[in-house]
């Protein structure tokens, strides 16, 4: 069985400061990794994904994440946040060998960007 842990439930950050959201997973098989963002009163939007290849992946809105297999981590970073980045961020994994790519989500990290 897979599981995802997001170590920080809330992260307050000042505008233009960097932010890192931590994600660790456990799985007995190789995984695909995803970050989704949920803006207030909206659905889940894909930020970025790691399937294979380069361990540093870039996504939308200036976000990037690094896959670290030895540490089973997939931390999300942005060098300079904007007020509009205030949202909840979800890390998720799926099993590449399974049909249908069912996602297992972490508990989410709520980012509050302060002016």
């Amino acid at each position, binding site marked *: 069985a897979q599981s995802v842990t997001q170590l920080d439930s809330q992260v307050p950050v000042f505008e233009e400061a960097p932010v890192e959201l931590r994600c660790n997973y456990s799985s007995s098989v190789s995984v*695909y990794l995803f970050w989704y963002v949920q803006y207030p009163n909206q659905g*889940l939007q894909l930020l970025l994904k790691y399937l294979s290849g380069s361990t540093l992946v870039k996504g939308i809105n200036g976000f990037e994440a690094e896959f670290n297999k030895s540490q089973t981590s997939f931390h999300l970073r942005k060098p300079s946040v904007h007020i509009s980045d205030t949202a909840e961020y979800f890390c998720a994994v799926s099993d590449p060998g399974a049909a*249908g*790519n069912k996602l297992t989500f972490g508990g*989410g990290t709520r980012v509050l960007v302060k002016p």
Partner: protein
Amino acid sequence: EPEVTQTPSHQVTQMGQEVILRCVPISNHLYFYWYRQILGQKVEFLVSFYNNEISEKSEIFDDQFSVERPDGSNFTLKIRSTKLEDSAMYFCASSVGDTIYFGEGSWLTVV
């Protein structure tokens, strides 16, 4: 850009009533899903659907739940007799490859 659309956006229902949540997945997608998020909790997988049948379901998806693709475009989730603990945001999603795309969700409040 194509998107998954869901209706209704909000629904309030009395305990014991039947509810149907509707979704229009992205047109060329092959897999369809329902997830839910109880307030303050994780997003949880309910069920996946492929080739007109359930391909996987979680332990949450008991006999009170059913899914259907009644025509070529809609994908529905039915809860036969709602309970207070069914109050949640329900997300429909679809995929054709390795990435799942979500709708904006349907808030269900059971009173």
